């Protein structure tokens, strides 16, 4: 169903694209003309895909860069009016692939709708770039979710803005759009506080939905590998990898194997949010390598991980901070780190 704004494109995994079951999970990305599998259900709901893209779940997960590159190249070529990914239901690998593709397509300005369980890793991976319709965990939810996906996708394909999440049936995207309103912030603030005095509490900003709770205590630190992580902007002198001084969207890691402490001639801070004079005089106050080595020597901790992880935590958008945290945590898990000393500034 090509619209004036471009074709409708649908993304599926190997199973729903009819390429095979688990034995085909390594299937490379393919492009198929017309609707396939759930695409036919979408067509019945008024949204007929012109092109179906598909990839094996394992292939996407194990060769993400390559698979994503292929899929995005097709999207760049097709310039779709809307991309629909899934529904992925409760499948973690499929949901993740849908979320990542949705995120990258969204960054290219392509409207995206996907569907999966609210706890799917794909919801996080989408980073608010897609409209995610919450679904049940298995294919039995297809009949309920497809009409919602089709309606949303049709709205987007027409170049229109969907209504609010609770009316249109998608998960809040944690995205906030700027609008100009009639009254100044001062007028609105006075109104809000006057009604608050009357017991009617209203707000224009909802409190954060995600609270970070302290991790449970490490049962026996003597048995775990401990890593040093910092948002203090601690980097080698000269900042060779150009860590941003503020609004950082990336993180870096530097080896500390064989070092007893951080030398002031070798390490500095590029953090733009505090007076770094004292920290530059002794970078161990940013990354407490000297103290951690003492703990290691005394046997209080099992072993110090061979790299420290660093970023600049100042004026960082929450979405970037979440992504940085997740990426560092994944790297630490892979390195079998059991505990972290996280220094903040």
């Amino acid at each position: 169903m090509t619209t004036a704004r471009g074709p409708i494109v649908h993304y599926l995994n190997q199973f729903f694209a009819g390429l095979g079951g688990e034995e085909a999970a390594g299937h490379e990305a393919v492009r198929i003309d017309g609707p396939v599998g759930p695409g036919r259900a979408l067509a019945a709901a008024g949204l007929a895909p012109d092109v179906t893209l598909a990839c094996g779940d394992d292939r996407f997960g194990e060769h993400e860069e390559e698979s994503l590159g292929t899929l995005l190249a097709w999207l760049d070529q097709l310039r779709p009016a809307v991309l629909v990914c899934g529904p992925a239901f409760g499948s973690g690998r499929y949901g993740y692939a849908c979320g990542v593709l949705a995120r990258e397509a969204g960054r290219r300005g392509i409207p995206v709708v996907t569907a999966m369980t609210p706890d799917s890793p794909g919801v996080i991976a989408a980073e608010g770039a897609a409209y995610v319709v919450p679904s049940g965990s298995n294919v039995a939810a297809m009949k309920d979710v497809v009409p919602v996906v089709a309606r949303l996708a049709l709205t987007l394909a027409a170049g229109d803005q969907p209504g609010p999440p609770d009316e249109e049936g998608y998960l809040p995207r944690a995205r906030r759009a700027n609008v100009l309103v009639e009254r100044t912030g001062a007028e609105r603030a006075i109104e809000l506080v006057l009604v608050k005095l009357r017991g009617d509490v209203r707000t224009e900003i909802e409190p954060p939905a995600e609270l970070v709770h302290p991790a449970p205590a490490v049962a026996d630190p003597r048995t775990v590998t401990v890593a040093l992580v910092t948002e203090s902007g601690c980097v080698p002198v000269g900042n060779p990898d150009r860590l941003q001084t503020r609004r950082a969207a990336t993180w870096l890691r530097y080896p500390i194997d064989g070092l007893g402490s951080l030398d002031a001639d070798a390490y500095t801070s590029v953090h733009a949010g505090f007076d770094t004079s004292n920290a530059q005089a002794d970078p161990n106050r940013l990354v407490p390598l000297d103290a951690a080595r003492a703990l290691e020597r005394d046997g209080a901790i099992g072993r110090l991980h061979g790299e420290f992880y660093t970023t600049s935590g100042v004026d960082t958008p929450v979405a970037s901070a979440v992504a940085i945290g997740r990426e560092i945590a994944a790297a630490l898990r892979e390195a079998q780190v059991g505990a972290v000393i996280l220094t903040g500034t």
Partner: protein
Amino acid sequence: MSSTLADLSIATFAIHEVVEGTRTGRDGSTLVVDVPQLAVGARSDALAEVTVEVVRPDDPVRIANVLDVVLPDVGADDLDGTFPGLLDHGRREWFPTGRIHRVDGVVVLSVCDWRAAGAPDADELPDAYVDMAGPGVDRNPWAGDVAVVVRCVPAPGVPVADADAAVRRASLLVARALASTTLGESPDRIDLCRHPSTVEAAPDLPALAAVLQIASEGPLVDTFRLGRAMGTFAPTVVDPREPLAGAIVSGAYDWPAVRNVTAVYQGSALVRELLAGHGERFRMAGLVLAPGYLDGADEKQRAASRTAELLAELDADAAVCTTFSSGNSHTDTMLTIRACEQRGIAAVGVLAETNGGLTDHVPEADCLVSTGNEDELVDAWTPERVIGTEGDARVGEQVPTWAYVGACVETGDARLTAVPA
């Protein structure tokens, strides 16, 4: 009644057109600007070059490296009292009283490319734009006003603080010169700003106070009160008309969208609303200047507690807590809200959002005003001309909202807000 409580009146003169001429003056709603004369008047030894340029609404122009925005004001019966402490060098006592003439429809923009001038740490200063047309125009709170751009180039070897003082003085002098064209003339409107203590108000009306958070951290990130950099200051109760009368001037060039430029203090929508509603819908309890961007947790808590204590001494039932810039200072706002609520003072916070959340939050902050999402990208635009830089000024690129001066200012002066998308 002592002179400190005498009335302040702000007489407004509407300008609908600005033309260039051989002598700065006013002809009805037309302002005639002698550009070379204004530039000459703004020169100083600390500046190698000063140029003045007029840019009109809808001109396809992006103005880059914008430092400050100033409303053209002049003290009608006290010329030297205009922007007190800065144009009179703080030589005498001053009160926010008397009559100010203000030109409406024109703003003065100071522009300086600190990077090109080689100022230390200039790389840390973010891009700062004002778009007069294109998709970014609704991020410009002064989009409907003519911009008189005062572009300054520091003289080689002059310390940055001295050069910055000269830039500030240049823009204030131009602002005063433009407003001086109204002296002896009848205004279009007069706003009488009486000290609330001199205006009858029923005691059963709720008492509202304003907390104006300000930071002042050193050259290029300072705020000036009566001509002096405020530095680290204790929360202070001031005459609420002080900002309206030009006592607070910006020298802080951090994040543009949440930058409290001088025009924001002069306009002070919050103070004006509180003064206007005093005796009718509520009582105005007062204005507290509170420090923001404090370095340590103890300092932050002390300032928040002291602010709430002052509000209690003012018998405030409720407070509107504004914010200065983003990140760190949001913690100051949150702690202030908590301290207020713990004293039984209902609090509302005024804050900009970053995409997906707030830098800090306390459970007591159940009533917040959003001044917009700093991280939203504005569509790419290619202006016909860029003023203020020889660099690329993100022409043809998407520009984050944070780069637009005043777009999300957290004093309540703008009309931008963020809604779920």
